[in-house]
């Protein structure tokens, strides 16, 4: 009986010891962010040595990349190893779309907008039917390009938006952005044609936007306006065109 009681007591003491130790360890403050220069193996290493687990390894590094970004974003704002992590994840899993989108914004925090652009281009190449890639490329080109020639940047961004607008699932606003940027870039004729195409394919809101933008872009003189508007006939169905003409010449005699 005594032996049994001693055994029970020893067991209880051990359980208490384990619980108390862990509870104490849990009260310590969260550790400071680790070294931002963590070692990241090359993608080739994993593709050579573990081809069957390539996506699983990419997923594991995706989780690590999120933790790494969050940890350093909250503390020292240093993301030295982020480019290597992005490269590893996107090389092992080239069609992992979310990895490209997350990395594009995270690399801005790492002061590497050039890499954001580079990886979005790589993602677009690997996923050519996803409209988000040219859309983000247009946004990044317009927002973060170091080129001082804003007209040129506007044309580059408009080109990406135009590509995005042609892909399945693209929002109607993407084509409007392309048209607006073309106008900003000085490509007046292209901007007019894009707005006309938006009118032909877009919803009611897009059509209102197109009329307002075209009203500002088209020549004010009636005869010149007629000449330009006649050339837009092929960009929309005939039924739309007559409504378009009456909207664009509202207020004219």
């Amino acid at each position, binding site marked *: 009986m005594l032996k049994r009681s001693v055994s029970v007591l020893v067991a209880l003491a051990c359980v208490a010891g384990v619980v108390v130790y862990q509870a104490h360890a849990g009260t310590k403050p969260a550790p400071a962010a680790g070294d931002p220069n963590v070692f990241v193996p090359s993608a080739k290493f994993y593709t*050579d*040595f*573990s*081809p*069957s*687990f*390539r*996506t*699983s390894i990419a*997923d594991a590094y*995706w*989780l690590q990349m*999120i*933790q790494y970004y969050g940890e350093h974003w909250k503390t020292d704002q240093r993301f030295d190893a982020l480019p290597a992590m992005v490269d590893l994840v996107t090389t092992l*899993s*080239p*069609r*992992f779309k*979310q990895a490209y989108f*997350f990395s594009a914004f995270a690399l801005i925090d790492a002061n590497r907008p050039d890499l954001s652009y580079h990886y979005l281009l790589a993602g677009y190449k690997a996923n050519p039917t996803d409209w988000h890639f040219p859309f983000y490329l247009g946004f990044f080109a317009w927002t973060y390009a170091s080129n001082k020639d804003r007209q040129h940047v506007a044309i580059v961004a408009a080109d990406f938006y135009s590509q995005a607008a042609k892909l399945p699932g693209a929002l109607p606003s993407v084509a409007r952005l392309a048209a607006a940027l073309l106008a900003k870039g000085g490509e007046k004729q292209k901007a007019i044609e894009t707005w006309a195409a938006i009118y032909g394919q877009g919803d009611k809101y897009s059509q209102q936007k197109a009329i307002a933008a075209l009203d500002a872009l088209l020549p004010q003189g009636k005869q010149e306006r007629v000449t330009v508007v006649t050339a837009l006939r092929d960009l929309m169905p005939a039924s739309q065109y007559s409504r378009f003409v009456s909207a664009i010449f509202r207020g004219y005699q």
Partner: protein
Amino acid sequence: MRRIYAIAVNTFRETIRDRVLGVIVLFALGMIIASLWLASISLNQQARMMKDFGLVAVTFFGLVVAVFVAASLVHKEVEKRTVFVLFSKPVGRTEFIWGKFLGLAATMLVVLAGMGLFLFLLTLVVAKQASGWLLVATALIYLQLLVVMAVTVFFSTVSSAILASVLGISVFVAGQLSHNVLSLSRLGNGVVLKAASWIVYVLIPNLSAVDIKPTVVGEASASWASIAAWGGYLVAYIVVVVLAASWVFRRKEF
């Protein structure tokens, strides 16, 4: 054939009695916890992570069962001398090995089917993104594990259970790297080295020829022709190794 069937059924019952199916419960609990955890840390990639890591878990849980059960299967019978009772009846050694292997293959089928179906249903319920490819991937993992099992049974006829387990796991790892051996054979200049590398390449099972996980997570599209060819290769490899195990076991002196 009837004798092989009888041994297989007994082996199946024996391994089930060893609570091998507990692995399915462990897997299920692990996956449920992992799915909750992944939902909060994967940045909206829960479905992808569940499928990918789920298949890795199926592989490793299955590997543990396949190797440790296969390693002790023949060895246990010899150690406990029950094999003598069996051989006093009109049962050949080849029939014994095939019966043991097929019984264990049936157990593995139940284990893998349990884990695969659970993973399929979990991704369907939790992430609403189940893919039929998950079940195809599980079937291919099953074939890979049968190869490892066959090799482990072969080693268990010539060595101890522990050594057979270690060698079984080593063959699984080597099977993932077999293409590297081929690269080495191309690098060498000497004819002997090239020939030796090529022989090693042929001897090691090619377990990485087709990777279906990228298809499961929507990364790539799999080719049914390459899946069928690889499946046929794995079945042929299994037959050769089990025949070799039977041949060695026939010559074994107790």
